[in-house]
């Protein structure tokens, strides 16, 4: 009799804690509508991530010289532009929705080595020649994002 008492005490606890594989969880706890809710919620959260974290390709190139905007180019049209600064000419190239600085008279060539830019907010600075190139969004222009 004492043994049976022990069994009744221990068994329910053991069986309820051990019975937790995924199949049983799915079968016992999910109702059909719960699957629907989970799917809808996952889809909408995925959509939230996609829309709020979109560092999309920019569509506008802002070219500045001595701090003043000298030109705004579209990223959609391939072209080459030359901007004259204190040291000489900086050559900017737009090609295949990207922009780069082809050549610059600055001694360390930092902006040339920066390579192609295409995302909103990306920037190449040629400080000695006081020329900068920035990719922006034509709809809402954002100077900088801090968070």
């Amino acid at each position, binding site marked *: 009799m004492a043994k049976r008492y022990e069994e009744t005490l221990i068994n329910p606890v053991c069986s309820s804690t051990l019975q937790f594989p995924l199949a049983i969880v799915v079968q016992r706890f999910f109702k059909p*509508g*719960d699957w629907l809710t989970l799917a809808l919620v996952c889809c909408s959260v995925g959509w939230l991530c996609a829309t709020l974290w979109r560092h999309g390709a920019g569509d506008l190139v802002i070219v500045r010289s001595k701090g003043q905007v000298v030109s705004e180019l579209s990223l959609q049209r391939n072209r080459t532009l030359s901007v004259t600064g204190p040291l000489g000419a900086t050559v900017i190239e737009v090609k295949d929705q990207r922009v780069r600085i082809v050549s610059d008279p600055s001694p360390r060539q930092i902006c040339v080595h920066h390579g192609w830019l295409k995302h909103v907010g990306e920037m190449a600075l040629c400080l000695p020649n006081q020329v900068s190139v920035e990719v922006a969004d034509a709809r809402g222009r954002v100077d900088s994002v801090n968070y």
Partner: protein
Amino acid sequence: MRAAVSTPSITSTDHRIAWMAALAVALSMAESVFPSPIPGVKPGLANIIVLLVLHQDGLRAAVWVSGLRVIAGSLFFGSFLTPTFFLSLSGASCSLLMLTLTWRLPRPWFGPITHSLLSSLAHVAGQLFVVYLWLIPHRGIMYLVPILAVAAVVFGLVNGLIAARLLQAPSPAPASRAELAGIPATSRTG
């Protein structure tokens, strides 16, 4: 004084609500021990209690437990009427609003997992609303929304599963007590 305490207006439902609210406060204090990577990302274990009460005692009791949890919890934390309190209050209100809506869904089709998922998302939405309107009126917090939403889905799912598990467990208290009380009797006969 004694008569006032034992007035018949205190029902067993009141006792149950008080117990469950105390449990919810204890759970939210317990989980506050763990550091969170981003302010606002918390498991929200107290919501398991609210879900249980909702399923076992109905909507009115769930509103009571949730409200008591917010107020009593903030008194314990020392955050009563601080921004934290209002964040907690707005989250709990939105979550309760969502529960009242989802509670109308056909019960055989939608269980505690649905209630938990949607109410935890509503909780986060309510908090973000207050944060944006009052504390940080800057669009930068939009970058946090996906992280908070993913956390809400994960913890909402886990809490819903725990609530579903607890609701399906056979209520052990009366049976085991009867058994325990019955032990001497059986040993006597055996």
